[in-house]
């Protein structure tokens, strides 16, 4: 487990029969010279070293559009992830140069990965009407959102809404940990820091086991994908021990089980035209058997009965355009162009854009500050959007009733 998997990149690419469809669908290639097909071909011809040395792979958005389209299902983004590890360790490249916000957020993750570092997180954001616990069945993994408050204030409501939804429905207090660690997503995908990622995973695992939980809920697309897909690769029994759910899945299940409905206060009833931005981690990065995209739509369709109007953007679901930034990497004019494209589509589709990835929200908000034409667009997390519509149908059991 300690040994980092170091595959031969060429071996992973060999299935490629050089059709070049990947380049045509590559999102970053629309705003800068980046040609996955040619990079693959060069590696296949034995020029792996040259490709890695050039540093060109730092430019990859890791949006997974290529895998989504590859006729041979070559997982290019994952290969880039492996390459990044080599680029750091073998070629001494420093990813920090590409990391936005002077690398502060990824540094926090990295710090947490160290054995001796045990964070004591500020839990003052927890609303008074929500009871939390250190042990229990359901864990809400809050993630990095609270750390962003020093720079941005847009996300404050995301964890609050999430916890409120959970507390409203559940009988028992939700577990929120004071010593919660980062899931490690950005280190894993962005900077090729595998060792640090594994260290974080182990610390998380320890926490999960200690608190006796069986369900992990996230509001964050990245955390969801990391726990759901990456952790079971490290811990064989992870899936037996824990079930990972995104809050959307959770809400969907409760609704289908008849425990909640969506209702609107007649007085405040207003027509909302909204659209949904699918984060890559909750669309292209999930196996085809995962139906979270369809579940999201089903909920939205239900909201139409309340007078809401849901419209898809031109590019949606697995074809959704990228928010422009992945794992804090490469915030620049090109990434701005990508975000501009996305918000242009959103503006056509509705007045409100809902999404389920806090970082997508941050990146889009940032662009809104620069461009007046998007200032009217409301960008909301799913939890913020839905919280006032969720109505309990079955009365919550009061503690002790069971006896």
């Amino acid at each position, binding site marked *: 487990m300690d040994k980092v998997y170091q595959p031969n990149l060429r071996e992973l690419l060999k299935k490629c029969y050089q059709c*070049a469809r990947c380049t*045509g669908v590559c999102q970053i290639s629309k705003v800068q010279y980046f040609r996955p*097909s*040619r990079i693959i*071909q060069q590696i296949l*011809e034995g020029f792996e070293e040259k490709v890695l040395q050039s540093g060109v792979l730092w430019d990859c958005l890791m949006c997974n559009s290529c895998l989504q389209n590859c*006729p041979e299902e070559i997982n290019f983004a994952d290969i880039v992830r492996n390459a990044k590890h080599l680029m750091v360790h073998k070629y001494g490249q420093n990813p920090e140069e590409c990391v936005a916000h002077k690398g502060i957020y990824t540094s926090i993750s990295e710090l947490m990965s160290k054995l001796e570092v045990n964070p004591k997180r500020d839990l003052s954001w927890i609303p008074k009407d929500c009871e939390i616990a250190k042990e229990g069945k359901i864990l809400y993994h809050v993630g990095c959102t609270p750390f962003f408050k020093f720079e941005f204030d847009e996300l404050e409501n995301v964890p609050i809404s999430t916890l409120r939804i959970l507390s409203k429905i559940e009988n028992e207090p939700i577990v929120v940990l004071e010593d919660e660690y980062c899931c490690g997503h950005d280190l894993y995908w962005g900077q090729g820091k595998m060792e640090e990622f594994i260290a974080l995973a182990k610390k998380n695992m320890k926490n999960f086991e200690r608190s006796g939980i069986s369900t992990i809920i996230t509001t964050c697309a990245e955390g969801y994908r990391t726990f759901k897909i990456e952790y079971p690769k490290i811990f064989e029994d992870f899936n037996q021990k824990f079930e990972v759910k995104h809050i959307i899945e959770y809400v969907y299940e409760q609704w289908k089980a008849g425990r909640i409905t969506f209702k609107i206060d007649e007085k405040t009833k207003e027509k909302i035209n909204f659209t949904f931005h699918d984060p890559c981690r909750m669309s292209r990065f999930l196996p085809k058997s995962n139906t979270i995209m369809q579940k999201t739509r089903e909920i939205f369709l239900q909201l139409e009965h309340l007078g809401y109007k849901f419209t898809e953007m031109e590019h949606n679901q697995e074809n959704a355009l990228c928010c422009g930034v992945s794992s804090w990497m490469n915030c620049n004019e090109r990434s701005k162009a990508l975000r501009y494209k996305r918000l242009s589509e959103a503006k056509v589709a509705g007045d409100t854009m809902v999404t389920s990835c806090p970082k997508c929200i941050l990146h889009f908000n940032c662009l809104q500050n620069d461009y007046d034409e998007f200032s009217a667009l409301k960008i909301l997390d799913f939890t913020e959007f839905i919280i006032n519509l969720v109505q309990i149908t079955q009365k919550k059991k009061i503690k002790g009733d069971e006896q």
Partner: protein
Amino acid sequence: MEGSVLVIGGGIAGIQTSLDLTELGFKVYLVEKTPSIGGRMAQLDKTFPTNDCSLCILAPKMVEVGRNPNIELMTYHEVLEIAGEAGNFTVKILKKPRYVDESKCKGCGDCASKCPKIEVPRLFDMNLGKRKSIYIPFPQAVPPVYVIDPELCLKITKGVCGVCQKVCKADAIDYEQKPIEFEIKVGAIVVATGFDMYGEELSKRWGYQYENVVNALEYERILCASGPYEGHVLRPSDKEEPRNIAFIQCAGSRDRQEDVPYCSSVCCMYTAKEAIITKEHSENSECYVFRHDLRAYGKNFYEYTQRAQDEYGVTYFQTKISKIIEDSKTNDLVIHYENLQTGKIETFKANLVVLASPLVPKKDSKELAKILGIELDKYGFFKEQSYYNKSKASKKGIFLSGFAQGPMDIPETVAGSSGVASEIATLLSSEKFSNTEEKIIETPEKEVKPSDEPRIGVLICHCGINIGKYVDVPKVVEKINKLPNVTHCEDNMYSCSSDSQERIKEMIKEYNLNRFIVASCTPRTHEPLFQETCEEAGLNKYLFEMVNIRDQCSWVHMKEKEAATQKAEDLIRMAVSKARLLKPQNEENLKIEPSALVIGGGISGMTAALNIANQGFEVHLVEKEEELGGILNNLYELFPNEDKASDFLVENIEKVENHKKIKTYLHSKIKDIKGYIGNYNISLSTLDNDKLELKVGTIIVATGAQELKPEGNFLYSDENPKIMTQLELEQKLTKDGDKWLKDIKRITTILCVNSRQKEGITYCSNICCSVALKNIRILKEMKPNLEMIVLYRDLQMAKKEFEDFYRERRQDAMFIRYSLNNLPSIEKKNNNYHINVINTNLQQELEFDTDLIILTTPLIPEDNMDELAKMLKVPLDGTGFFLEAHVKLRPLDFATDGIFLCGCAQWPKNIQDSISQANGAAGRASRFLSAGEITTSGLISEVNEALCIGCGKCEEVCPYQAVELREIEKTFEDITISIKKSYVNSALCKGCGTCGATCPVGAISVKHYDFDQIGVMIDSYLLEKTQAE
């Protein structure tokens, strides 16, 4: 055991299997789910690479099926259940209600023309055209019986309307029909259910959701003159002629995102065809093809794709497109792709896009497999028993024919279907002719002498309203009745109905007629019926004459009734004048010697010999080498399995050698061949007999092919033992094992050496890519750390499991694409070679050293084939391989009856196809052996010996080798000389008349169509018309 067979599916595979089966002596139940046979081939506009009209070459076969007394045609039926085992199956069949009585419907179409104008998409036109509630799938449907769509019909759904019943003069409409279930007993079952083509199933990137993106089958209908746009190339959204048409190949095939990991095999070719036909239809259009590998590996295929580019100006881009987006204002399509050569991301604007989308197993394959208790393969096609026997399903007694087994083109389907028929013939050989029936006419033929006064009867048909509405039939009857020698003329509603046949017999008797004419529809479908009726009345069938006053008269002159009436009268009058001169003709029966000669003892020859011998006929197998096995003797392992070639060979040789009915002649050569179908005299020189004489009834050519040695190319010579061909490599592996690989680190395989060139060998030799990949696997297995490099142009891995094999080899080797314009160059260095190649994908120059070079060269015809061809009197094609009778529908026949073709003698092919073809050729040949005799036609050429000057022009032009010059002694008053005279072999003559048209002295003519008979028709038109006026 039962002497009958169930064939499921009425496409070309089912049709060919059924026809061959009846000729081999079996009764066939042909079950087809839709209302007509014809299948996919009937939907195609043209066929590649000859650009034949698809339905025109298929329709005669469909008609043959419809008329064959030993085929029970069950269209609009389905198979429900089977029980029993090989030899004795009981099958439960569902007859779905047509609401039209098949025995009464004459296919006139009166019902459909009156059916209220509620229209739904016509499935035959891939839903681009429209049909009514009562309909026929397409005009040439067999049977030509209408069917009511119960979901659309107002009478059936709402109890109103009923117009069709009122207008049907044949009283064929029956709204009360119910589904009927019944059982049949058969000895074997053939699955020939064909394929579907993806459309809506494709993911959005291909743009099928847009109106102006169509799949290739839809485009075939667009191109077709009988299609929804009557052959005008128009796009669906605005019915405007598109200027730029983009064809997208691999639109979902070889693509795991679409769950189609295999190559659909035929798309490269039909795309080239569609582009060429488009250019022919609309001059202003520009065709662009987006392709990946160009898989054009059949006879004349690669050349065809080159002609598309060079002669027709079709532009090819080598790239897999990324996506197609519609411009919502113009409904044009924007295609996004990376230009592989430049790395630029480009867009292409097309007015219409045609997708070569995947050809996939029929939707209900799973259900049928369950009913039949047979397996499907991992792609959903029916699973074959083994790679070498693709025609057998996983259960004994059940066979697979055509695309239901995996992607294949029409000739492969036809050859395979003949193979299936012959394998069934061996399984049920004891039951041949046990269930079939032959119609015996008992009425004695009445004598008609040329001196007898002609007494002509004429029947003129209304064909419902098809003729009657546009031609004034009673008026024509009146006129014809007045003609000299016309004893009686009358009209009727449907001449083809069974009561009409009785009426014809009555007329012949009542008026003592000695000639008979029916003026109705096309002789193509109906002449044999009327001839039979005449025979039943004791009239020689050649005293019958048919006039088509529908297809070329009433149908084309619907708006000019008077002219149509006049034309009908003219046509019938002409026929009357010919009828006066008609003579009775004889049909001869020729005995067939019940044995076969197979030339060539490779896998094809051995398979063919075994098949014929297993049917109980004597076989003479002639091989020029000292041992059986042919090219397989030089192979190491077989593709794509890991079977040792020698094991496979020994097994087959043993079977041949132990078979009592097979006589093998090794080290033997054919010296001379005389005779014709059924009666060949063969001279053979064998090891111990210089002049062995054999008598056989039929001949199979299975002479194989050989590998080209690329002398002087890529440094190939005796001086460079480390540059070798694939076959030399295999011989080395067989002989030396893997020891010699010790010092070898890197091996480079070059594909397309000396093939697919602009000059010289221009063809793709089909099998070389798979041979090369097979050897890469073998080498890599022997020495895992070998570095393998493949220099290729396009990889031909088109069969269903081949793409998977190729995918695996990508793990073993580095693949670099080069182009014909920039061939790799090789320099000799001390102990190894230095290669320079331009990777066309990146336009980048690569150089590397290599220890061993394997050159992959094409198969070329065996030596001295022209000699054999001359003896057999059969042609070779431009490349030196034997030329079959028709590349699409007669791949195993020669134009000359009695001689058949299989294996690499016809075209380079792999073992699977060679075996399938060999069985097919054996089946084709044993049709004659099984029947024991053949009936020659009365419509053949005859020579007026007195006039013949022996110039031999007739012999030169005869396509069937039926004419030859013979020397006869001629004694004049004071001299006796030998003179050449033309002689027509009635067994071979097809009555085409080419000889007659060529003869400079008018000595040769076709019976029934002689100069007098044609002459009086012309006279009648020109002279009697003016007289009449």
